[in-house]
């Protein structure tokens, strides 16, 4: 109710504004004001994720977007509005769940998280997959060996373990590691839901 009233109000301001400008336009025969009006209807300036750069190595988001297996993750990143954070200079280490990992969640979970009202919950879950640090595979092994936990952007800690078949983070196995311009992507097949 409040929202619709607000929207109506905004519409009103806009109409009045445009109308009064229109009058001025016809009087002074301006041609530039139309261009400026067009410009002003654009969304507010985007953050770093909007930077066009085809020369640097790909960052976390660019790599994730280039692979079909991360389409759910990419949708979630965008829905949570954290796309600017994952392209940040970091350094960042991201444990990236593949689509199948999201499928493992109880039915309806993903759809629910993608709803606007759950934006902050979704963001919290995603930040539990991001360490503000530079952890290549070797460093992960070392963390495990030394019993050092990983501090995640969610504020939670994840345990790293060296097992016979590989490295485990938060109980799930690192399937593959990819160097990206702003850190590392480690592919996992479970979502690391914060406790």
């Amino acid at each position, binding site marked *: 109710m409040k929202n619709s009233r607000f929207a109506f109000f905004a519409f009103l301001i806009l109409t009045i504004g445009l109308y009064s400008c229109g009058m001025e336009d016809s009087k002074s025969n301006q041609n530039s004001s139309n261009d400026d009006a067009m410009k002003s209807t654009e969304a507010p300036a985007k953050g770093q994720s909007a930077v066009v750069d085809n020369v640097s190595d790909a960052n976390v988001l660019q790599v994730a977007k280039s692979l079909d297996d991360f389409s759910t993750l990419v949708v979630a990143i965008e829905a949570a509005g954290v796309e600017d954070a994952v392209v940040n200079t970091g350094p960042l280490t991201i444990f990236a769940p593949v689509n199948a990992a999201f499928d493992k969640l109880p039915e309806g979970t993903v759809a629910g998280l993608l709803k606007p009202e759950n934006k902050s919950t979704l963001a919290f879950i995603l930040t539990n997959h991001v360490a503000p640090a530079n952890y290549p595979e070797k460093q992960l092994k070392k963390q495990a060996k030394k019993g050092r936990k990983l501090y995640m952007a969610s504020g939670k800690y994840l345990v790293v373990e060296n097992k016979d078949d590989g490295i485990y983070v938060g109980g799930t196995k690192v399937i593959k590691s990819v160097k990206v311009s*702003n850190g590392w992507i480690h592919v996992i097949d479970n979502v690391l839901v914060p406790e």
Partner: protein
Amino acid sequence: MKRILKSTIAIIVLSMVMVACGPTTSKKGGSKGVLSGSQAERAYVAPGEHDEYYGFISGGFSGQLAVYGLPSGRLFRVIPVFSQDPEKGYGYSEETIPMLMTSHGFVPWGDSHHPDISQTNGELDGRWIFINENNTPRVARISLETFETEEIMEIPNSAGNHSSAFVTENSEYVVAGTRFGVPTPQKDIPISEYKSNFKGSLTFLKIDPENGLMNIAFQIRMPGFNFDLAHPGRGDSHGWFFFSSYNTEEASTLLEVNASQNDKDFIAAINWKKIEEYVAQGVGTMEPARYAHNVWDDHTHTATTTMEKEVLIINPEDVPGAIYFLPTPKSPHGCDVDPTGEYIIGSGKLAATITVHSFSKMLKAIEDKAFDGETYSIPIINYEAVNYGSLEQPGLGPLHTEFDTRGNGYTTFFISSEVVKWNIKDLVVIDRKPTFYSVGHLMIPGGNSRKPFDKYLVAMNKITKDRYLPTGPEACQSAQLYDISGEKMELLLDFPTIGEPHYAAGCPADLLASKSVKIFKLEDNTHPYATKSEADSKVVRKGNEVHIYMTMIRSHFSPDNIEGVKVGDKVFFHVTNLEQDFDVPHGISMLGANTSELLTMPGRTETFVWEPKEIGVWPFYCTDFCSALHQEMQGYVRVSPKGSKIPISYTIDEEVPGEDL
């Protein structure tokens, strides 16, 4: 959250309305003069928006070249050219020190004057920008892809390389004319023997069209006049170069009086195409000389200095028909050629007129031999025979003229502190606007080409006085931006500059922006001490030299704990930035090192030297705020006494880099 969203929408809506209305109101205010909002809006570039033009304004006695956006006047970058720049490690790192080598040894400072952008077919092509150094005569070439100095050529037989660094319309040559007459080659003689013993060299540097590399093709040994400024012919006058001169009196003392005696000095007209033909036929004498040629390489990321040993000298009497003098009143400074190439404008600093010579009349005069004798074997063309006309009483102290596409010249007047717009053909003043104060040169982007971009004019002032908040006895230096798109000029903006804003060149932003280099590819790095992966980082002792092959990546150095260094060692930090991400340089500085930091771009290797004098454990750290963990990017070097038996060791996180767990 919702509230934030709502207020955001409200702001957007509101600004939409305001922006939409904005220009209408602003145009209405256009006639209200400088104090109305209109000027501010026209120089305003909104956050996140880009400027329409690049302005390259020399830093004068700072020795550098500064890059501004126009119309905003925002400073983007100071390109170090002739002076050390500790902020960027230029002239401090082992790789860049050779850039500042000269025949006089390492010179840490220079006086940069006249930048000029390379051209193709008389139009700006945006490949390179050239700039001269006055004190230790040099010409530099700067890449407009990296915005870094790529080459510096010292000019032999020259002193005060002022009449430089202007390029011909296909960038065949960049010129370097000497401001001082000097004994050539140098010799130990009384100063009073100036006349006929002192010479003025006009040097033509050939530019390699592929890579921009310069070499001195020939040097014309002119009489010992003082060559001031120069501009190339274009269109029909392509193939000629025009140099203004003063002190045709050949005085060596109290020039302010003694060099102002003659009613007319000369503009020297040089037919360089003809001289090229003479040179091809073997004319000229190769003479011994010694001058440094410094070249930067973006693969080795290192500069090298080559000492050149000879230069081809052309004497005017050897090249008949190639050199003429055009009499021009009262110590001409500016020597400017309009976009058509027909008019050569001489601005006598002390003259009550602006002199306009005609190229076509000059050719006719040469054909008719309309000469008033000769001096030092150079024919002096009859003034009336070459002169198109004069702009009478335009102001006091004319200096420099640039041009629009509508047949107008814009001339600065130092003494009367103004810019005057005038029609060249009609020789009438159209408009005049004050400058604040004592303007020197001015710049219209492309103003020295066939195709000026005549929307803005930048006036560079010598005196600022009360224009800004005071900062002690040294007032800030200043430039002013005028809108010249209309009949009358309008002052839009004052903006402060570095050094002395001596002279400038400008071009449309889209000529350069898309090709600006973002990173250096690590795979293309052929620096002998490049370390391309952390696993390869190491420390090697060679006698008392210790070479650290160090890498940098967000957010650590490798190695970061080093032991076994001793007092008296010479420690080389060869640091490679492993990043391949735009705008992620790393810096490094070492406590106790007698040098600057390094600021290393992605993919590049740089070196600084530290000679530890005291035992202890000394830290180094990253100086550029590279990442969230920038503050953690640091390390230690342990320094033991001379003669200590502690071997070199190096680790990161208690492991030797590259060793498997």
